[in-house]
């Protein structure tokens, strides 16, 4: 898997490179600003880009804008955006920039190395990965008397993990139950939220859940 990393702080750029290489990814470029990122994305055509939101010269949201621009130029380009803060607004913009192959995570998540690398692979494979903080905020703002309130607490847990982009197998592993139990939960959730149960491909399922929560 060929990866481009864009991160302005050398400490983190080197750390990410080392981490991804330790897991067998090929880091084809590690750049420090949005301009170099755009250039690397067109020239190297990587399988996935890992991008910091805040970069020079203005240190605001260059990384985010560069990611969205790159995805309009090359639809479906997999981008995983990292940030020290997560914003619902940014999550919306990223999710609106095309169908799947997008990720938005807090930088803290890199400490859980295996899960982080898994997230990079998911995005590269066209999946969607959202930070738990974004998801829990989305669930928290669901109306108290709405359909989400009819879910059991276990179902809500599963809903959260689904929205983060986890597969049934991953959810089962995280909750220490069988995959079969999870698929029972998911079909319950789909029924209670009145979503189309046939939407079972991993990514379309995430998008359906998020679209539901964002509405």
């Amino acid at each position, binding site marked *: 898997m060929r990866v481009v990393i864009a991160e302005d702080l050398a400490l983190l750029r080197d750390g990410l490179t080392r981490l991804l290489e330790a897991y067998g990814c090929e880091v084809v470029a590690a750049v420090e600003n949005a301009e170099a990122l755009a250039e690397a994305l067109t020239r190297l055509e990587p399988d996935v880009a890992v991008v910091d939101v805040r970069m020079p010269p203005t240190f605001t949201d260059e990384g985010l804008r560069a990611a969205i621009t790159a995805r309009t130029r090359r639809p479906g380009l997999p981008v995983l955006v990292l940030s020290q803060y997560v914003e619902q607004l940014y999550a919306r913009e990223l999710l609106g920039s095309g169908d799947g192959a997008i990720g938005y995570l807090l930088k803290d998540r890199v400490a859980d*190395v295996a899960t982080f690398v898994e997230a990079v692979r998911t995005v590269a494979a066209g999946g969607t990965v959202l930070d738990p903080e974004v998801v829990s905020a989305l669930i928290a703002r669901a109306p108290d008397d709405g359909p989400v309130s009819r879910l059991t607490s276990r179902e809500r847990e599963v809903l959260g993990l689904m929205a983060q982009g986890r597969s049934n197998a991953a959810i089962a592993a995280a909750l220490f139950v069988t995959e079969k139990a999870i698929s029972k939960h998911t079909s319950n959730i789909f029924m209670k939220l009145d979503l189309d149960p046939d939407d079972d491909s991993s990514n379309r399922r995430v998008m359906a859940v998020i679209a539901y929560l964002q509405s």
Partner: protein
Amino acid sequence: MTAATALAVPRSERFVAGMRRRVALTGVSLVYVLLAPLALVLLCTLTVSLGVAVTGVGLLLLLVLVPLAAQLAGLHRRLAGRLLGVTIDAPYAPTARGSWWARLRGWAADPARWRDLAWTYVAVTLGWALAWLGVGLGLAVVWYAIFPGVYALVPEGTLANDYGFVNLDTQPEAYLNWVLLPVVFALWWWLEPVLVRCIAQLDRAMLAPSRAALERRVAEVSQSRAESIDHSAAELRRIERDLHDGAQARLVALGMNLGLAAELLENDPEAAARLLTEARDVTTSALGDLRSVVRGIHPPVLADRGLAGAVQALALDMAVPVSTTIVLAGRAPAPVESAVYFAVSELLANVGKHAAADRVSIDVSHDGRALVVVVEDDGVGGASPSGTGLSGVARRLTAFDGTMDVVSPAGGPTTITLEVPCALSSPRTSPSSATD
């Protein structure tokens, strides 16, 4: 005189109080009468000095006379303020520091100084006349009261009052003057408070800050408020950036190192050990980052030791020898301390960067009105008050009505004086006021 007060206080007591008040006011009139010659002297000397200003002698006289006029005006302000039950602020613009020429130019540009001069004209004419009237009424009451007695004491024929229809020239007739006593007394009773009030109002009108001055002040305050808001917004942004790029990033790296080390522990223990060592170093530098951010927000030594200790700490951090003389009888308000600390810190940083100085001295004192900090170095001079560093210092201080004065001729030495009006709390000798 309402029924309520009449019931509450007996008539006789009210009369005694009224008498006392009027006697006191007559005394005040006398004070005004005696002060007027001072105004007259100032008026003449000031006018003459202004007239001969071109000769240079006049200028030197003005250096003495203008502050004297301000002193006298200040006395009148306090007196009028007490009589009217208000506080009358001095309207002067801050006197420029530095050369006597700068001081004179500052005064000439200050309308309040010219109003002082105009006031002396009024004080020796209308003001003096009113004061004499006040004293005269009081004396008249006494005179009519004691007239028969005096008549008896002086030789026959010395005192004779010819009212036209009657000529008082015998002792029994002298008692007839008492007929006028109630009239004079009534005049004194009614007019004395009015006269003194008139004088006080006159002084207030001439000496209180003018409307234009107040408007200018409001404009200054709005400007400095906007600047301090800008300044604090920029500071917050800087702190956010420092945290984002410093401690936060290091903690992320730390998590990454530890995560990777955990994964490698089984297969490649040596690499894991290297990562752990690196992780330890990252915690150290993250703590260092946090410390410097905290120092940028509110230095711990300032919190512990106040301005005196914090300035000494700054002095010790400098590569060039810095002598400090700090005489503070208490602590300035915390925001002032903080502003002055960062101002001094910026000035010292400037000295370190540009001055090439061999010696620096810092003098911190309080002159009863303002905290005064003088930073002097023997470097190359040529510091510009409009440079980003120094203008930032000035901006920091304007929020507290503070001023910065820069004297830095090319070739040095450079003297920068900071003044921030404030009161000192808890009058105790600061334990860290010392020279090193």
